[in-house]
């Protein structure tokens, strides 16, 4: 009984934290599904989102979440430009070339971040950073709750967009069969740009919530990329429900791992989970 009581806190926090990982992983999964490119810059783009929110907050005192009203369209547009001018030519030739370009983008951002903001860790600090709710015996930090709701909103909006709009259906169709999508009158170049734009907008959102939750430095994106990989592998590529469940499992095994095995267990346990899933069900829990 005592153990069960102690477990409630890591279970609640892990689930809520999983929401953050869901938003990070969705962007990676979308780009892979449509462009067939492993966007190794995705984690760093998320951290770039954290830094931009940090810069805006320090310069003008704008709240990071409020900043997203501008940040989301801005990052979307930036994503369209990156796809159009950097990735597009490579994507049509070979996935390897696009991979290297993505790697280059990550390096440029990481080094630029070091120049502008130093290698030291930063955090997005707000008035509500240290607020928490008491439920029964446990305290839940407000930012963890925000993470989870942000994830739910992003999932719902993206799902409705993919299901209910012509452009969303075009993205879905192009991810399943690009050649035939073009025969349906779909401009695949445009679809690629919009898909990458959406992934960037998700990076802006994930960046803000990551920065509210954890300190970040110029290379934090690398660890985040690996986590996003883990989530996508757990859930199965191309399945939104899978990514959601994968994110929650990852968050849960991180907090439970920390509870049982101390700080070293925090990443060890989730990646053991990934390993187990890869062995038993290589296509992921919800994969096709």
């Amino acid at each position, binding site marked *: 009984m005592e153990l069960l009581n102690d477990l409630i806190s890591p279970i609640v926090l892990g689930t809520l934290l999983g929401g953050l990982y869901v938003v990070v992983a969705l962007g990676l999964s979308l780009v892979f599904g449509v462009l067939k490119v492993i966007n190794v810059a995705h984690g760093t783009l998320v951290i770039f989102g954290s830094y931009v929110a940090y810069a805006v907050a320090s310069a003008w005192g704008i709240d990071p979440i409020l900043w997203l009203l501008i940040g989301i369209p801005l990052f979307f547009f930036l994503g369209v430009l990156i796809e159009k001018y950097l990735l597009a030519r490579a994507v049509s030739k070979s996935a390897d070339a696009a991979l290297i370009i993505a790697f280059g983008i990550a390096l440029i951002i990481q080094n630029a971040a070091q120049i502008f903001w130093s290698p030291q860790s930063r955090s997005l600090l707000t008035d509500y950073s240290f607020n928490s709710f008491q439920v029964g015996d446990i305290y839940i930090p407000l930012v963890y709750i925000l993470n989870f709701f942000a994830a739910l909103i992003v999932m719902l909006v993206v799902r409705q967009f993919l299901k209910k709009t*012509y452009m969303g259906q075009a993205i879905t169709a192009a991810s399943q069969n690009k050649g035939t999508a073009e025969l349906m009158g779909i401009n695949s170049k445009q679809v690629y740009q919009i898909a990458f734009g959406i992934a960037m907008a998700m990076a802006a959102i994930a960046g803000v919530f990551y920065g509210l939750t954890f300190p970040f430095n110029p290379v934090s994106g690398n660890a985040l990329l690996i986590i996003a990989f883990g989530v996508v592998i757990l859930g199965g590529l191309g399945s939104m429900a899978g990514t959601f469940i994968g994110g929650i499992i990852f968050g849960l095994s991180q907090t439970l791992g920390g509870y049982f095995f101390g700080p070293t267990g925090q990443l060890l346990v989730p990646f053991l989970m990934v390993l187990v899933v890869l062995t038993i069900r290589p296509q992921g829990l919800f994969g096709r």
Partner: protein
Amino acid sequence: MEMTPEVMLQVKNINVYYDKLGVLWDISLDVNKGEIVAIVGSNGAGKSTLLKSISGVLHPKEGSILFGDQDITNMDPYKIVGLGISQVPEGRQLFPDMTVYENLHIGSYNKNARLHAEENLAKVYKLFPILEERKKQLAKTLSGGQQQMVAVGRGLMANPKLMIIDEMSLGLSPLIVSELFHVLHEIKTQGITILLVEQNVCQTLDEADRAYVLETGHIVMSGNANELMDEEEVINAYFGE
């Protein structure tokens, strides 16, 4: 005297290459408004390459392709669809993890077709009632015949003036094939012109108004489908049936 037919599609002396390998030489053909025209030929004759050239997936090195009075020789596929040429590709090529309804609906992606999406969907469900019953099913769970119905229906959703259908009968039972041909005639009476590409020579010639026989990248015969039927010996020589 017959009235001069209105030419819908005009392929003029095209040469098509895959990189440096020539596949089609000096191909010319016309499709008139309201016709069912067939292109028949054995495997490897260049039928699919010809279709890819018309739909803009490949561009001819020489020659030109006109749709109405518009030059579409070097146009991108998605723009060509918008002009009113839709294609039902070989092997159905449905989006496997989308529902029947979603597969049909995405057919109406081009701007012109969106305006008519609802009426066209009603038409498709009238032609293939089974698709309405199965509209929520994933495309990959359908039988081959039903998948072909979705593919034809999806082509209709593009609100086409000309519908190109590639190897419709491939891998389907004769019963389903004649059902599909019956629907094609129905589609024709609705004012849509049809260009068929088939390996199945006899039945296709039976259903088409005119036909072109393609052999190793050249058109070797053309004319009234019935007349070509009478040349069966010649056809036999080409197809070894």
